[in-house]
């Protein structure tokens, strides 16, 4: 595990980003620490996907800088970056029928030299990731034959096998049923508490986000509206401001978990 306990694992300093004329993210400052689960929250078009792309280095900011362990992302090669950050995308397309184990093994790509063979460690991490996602029985199946839920577990297993200190989920569970969603989150939570994994997850479902995340990063129209522990951020006023809907935020007295209720007979004026 390459996890660090250092504060400010990932850091955004005055980051702005846009496509041609239109600015998608403006002047974002953010600190992300390890061993926490961050929920990236905001309505459609608020800039969540752009922020994800900036965090994993597939896009460069127009202004400002994204730092990983104190150094700008641009100072890392793609391969170095891939040893720190992994991505679980929402869409998963494959033109060719690789077997499940081959796909999970691709997670080891940044760790294996061009002319070397996978080491025992590599096999070990792949087996562990497949066991955690409960896909060992699928190991030799062509991935094109799997159901949506099975495929997504393969993709998460691939990211787990990559063994990075940070994992970024871009709506990774929005096509899954609730059982598969919770299974994936349970495994990730375990890694967070056991090995200090940092998870940044763009999630649409506020209830799910509230139960899964430690902290929220809330975006609207490319601006950072709020950032901090879920219980501080999440309230009726914020939901009204950001999502433009009326909602009751109910705190469960026993578990102190939070629940959002959307009353249908009230609308905003």
């Amino acid at each position, binding site marked *: 595990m390459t996890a660090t306990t250092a504060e400010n694992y990932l850091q955004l300093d005055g980051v702005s980003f846009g496509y041609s004329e239109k600015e998608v993210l403006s002047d974002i400052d953010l600190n992300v620490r390890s061993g926490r689960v961050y929920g990236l929250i905001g309505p459609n078009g608020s800039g969540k996907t752009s922020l994800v*792309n900036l965090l*994993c*280095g*597939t896009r460069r900011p127009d202004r400002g800088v994204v730092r990983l362990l104190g150094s700008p992302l641009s100072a890392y*090669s*793609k*391969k*170095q*970056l*891939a*040893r720190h*950050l*992994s*991505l679980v*995308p929402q*869409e*998963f*397309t*494959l*033109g*060719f*029928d*690789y*077997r499940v184990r*081959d*796909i999970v093994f*691709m*997670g080891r*790509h*940044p760790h294996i030299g*061009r002319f070397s*063979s996978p080491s025992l460690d590599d096999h070990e991490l792949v087996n562990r990731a497949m066991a955690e996602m409960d896909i060992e029985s699928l190991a030799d199946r062509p991935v094109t034959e799997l159901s949506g839920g099975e495929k997504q577990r393969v993709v998460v297993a691939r990211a787990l096998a*990559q063994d990075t200190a940070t994992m970024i989920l871009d709506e990774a569970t929005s096509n899954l049923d609730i059982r598969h969603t919770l299974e994936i989150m349970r495994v990730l939570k375990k890694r967070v508490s056991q090995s200090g994994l940092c998870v940044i997850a763009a999630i649409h479902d506020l209830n799910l986000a509230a139960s899964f995340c430690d902290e929220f990063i809330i975006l609207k129209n490319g601006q950072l509206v709020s950032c901090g522990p879920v219980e501080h951020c999440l309230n009726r006023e914020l939901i009204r401001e950001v999502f433009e809907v009326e909602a009751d935020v109910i705190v469960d007295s026993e578990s102190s978990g939070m629940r959002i209720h959307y009353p249908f007979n009230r609308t905003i004026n």
Partner: protein
Amino acid sequence: MEIRSTLISATLGLVLAATIVASTTMGFLSITPLEVLQIIGARLKGATTVTGIEPSFIFVVWDVRLPRILTAAVVGGGLAVAGAVFQGILLNPLADPYTLGVSSGAAFGASLALILSIIGISMPAFVSVPLFAFIGAMATLAAVFSLSSRDESLSSNSLILAGVIVAAILSAGIGFIKYLADEQVSVIIFWLMGSFVGRSWSDVLLVGGLTLPTMLVIFYFARDLNIMSLGERTADTLGVDSSRIKKILLLCASLISAVAVSVSGVIGFVGLIVPHLLRAILGPDNRTLLPACFFGGGILLLLADTLTRAWLPSELPIGILTSLLGGPFFCYIFRRKQLGRSS
């Protein structure tokens, strides 16, 4: 993994070598495999006569049949590897050197060289045709790149669309050149149909010298090509510089296609069928697939060429033969792909 992959390549390599020897024995003169091997061994050592073998046999094997056979094998292998690379990059099992307009570009360049010599601007044909074909292929690739370059990551869809557009313009251009050629149009038509008739050792050197080193570059990126099948965004987060590697691999595959077109005319479908069949048997891992495609493509095109050379009563242009066999196969894959999508 590596043992299996080496074993498959070695087996296919031996089959290719056996096919080369077997097809050398066939033709108007019947020559035994032993004689073929003796002649090859003697010529490789520099001897020009072999005791007990007629000098005309040596001429037929060494100067007539072998250059043609080796050219066919390398061209077939090169087209299959190029096809596999195009399919891997464009994530489309129907992609091959034609999809990107590369073959059309090469054909246009070669037609231009032929028409120039017809209207009197003469250059030696063995220089101008390959050169023009190559320039045509590379110019086409550049045009396709620049058409789709607004799209930063060179997405598959915009590349294929640009390829189709450019190819359509080029085939109109080829039609115009045919029209200009008037009564001498048969030279161009025969060349466009593809053929290995009368290939010499200089063709073998040209096609081998360019194809084999380029192929090594492609093999070097085989694992990256595997990762790139996960999509560009994911590949980037797995440490693969996909837009750079995409450019390098497209350039290499286009170079191989252009060289193939320049020595043998237009030969379709080898780049489509061979990778497709081998992928169904061996799986999609490019580290195994790409070398296997080289040998498999060589075997297939050599068999097809031997069929027209030694078995058919009169020689059929090889491009027509491969298209007659490959066309229906193309329809079959297309149908199966559509069925697969709707289910």
